[in-house]
């Protein structure tokens, strides 16, 4: 079963996302990272096992946009589906994220409901196996 990588500089936000995933009864292992650079380090050791990346935008050191743009240039990693989970919910920002990573498959604007997150990741995880 593929793992879920949650990238957010807010530990509370990561906990909330993980709670939603667990309450929705997804059994996938979950990896965490507090910024884009740390997420790349996590992927370096786990990229074959990660089936989805849930990524914040505004983070210190390396933003979510920089991170998804960087992994889009590394062929095997570029295939991992990405979902942005961010306060940057304008159409302009969504277009910017899509341009940065063609494998952006979902976009969730904060604040969001548990149902929004569950319904977004369910088909992606089902496909990832």
């Amino acid at each position, binding site marked *: 079963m593929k793992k879920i990588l949650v990238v957010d500089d807010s530990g509370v936000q990561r906990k*909330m996302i993980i709670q939603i995933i667990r309450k929705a009864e997804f059994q996938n292992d979950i990896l965490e990272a507090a910024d884009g*650079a740390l997420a790349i380090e996590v992927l370096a050791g786990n990229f*074959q096992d990660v089936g989805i990346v849930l990524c914040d935008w505004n983070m210190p050191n390396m933003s979510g946009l920089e991170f998804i743009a960087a992994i889009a240039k590394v062929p095997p990693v570029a295939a991992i589906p990405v979902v942005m989970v961010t*306060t940057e919910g304008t159409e302009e920002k969504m277009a910017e994220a899509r341009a940065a990573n063609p494998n952006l498959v979902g976009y969730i604007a904060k*604040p969001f409901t548990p149902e929004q997150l569950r319904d977004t990741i369910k088909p992606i995880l089902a496909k990832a196996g």
Partner: protein
Amino acid sequence: MDDINATLQTALNDSVKEAFSMTLSMDAQTIEAELMPHVQEAIISSIGFTGKLEGNLSICVLNADACAMVSNMLGMEITEVTSDVCDGIGEIVNMVLGGVKMKISGPEMKIEIGIPTTILGNNMQVLSKKDKTFQLKYNFSAGTAKFTFILNYKIHEQAPEGPQQKSINALEKLSSLMGQNGSGQTACDAKQNALDALNKAVQQDPSKGGRP
């Protein structure tokens, strides 16, 4: 000016209510009473923004009420101010400002949001009103918790052109200049090192035909 002020008032109030409803499962309502105490322990979390509008949004909340709010976020009882409480209050102000941005953004109104800074202390006030700076201040209640949102802003006649190079937050700028990422290396070094490690790991992946 009156149009922008009225738009911001509505956007701020609606965004607070949405964030509390969706993330904390709490019904937030504006109240008239003056809340910000000057003698009790409180948390202030502030986040800056630049663009056509420049300023900051702050939340001021007593420690006990902050604990109650983050307890709702995490679905567990928290009775003391921990790093999670500070983080959670920062995330609330981040979500509220994100909501305001979504509601006011358009071709003529673009803003960029920074990263929250949270301060714990006594006898604190948000006092950033200067010439040509406007302030919106609203008190809210949600459950037993009471809190204040303060939006300070000024209007630029022309939004800065090109990519935002200006630092949104003085602390971020200082951190960047000092390369404070815990190891003495700059953030740029850290990004490159992480990318190098990822590329190396991919090249060594036997399933990709790379060299071990």
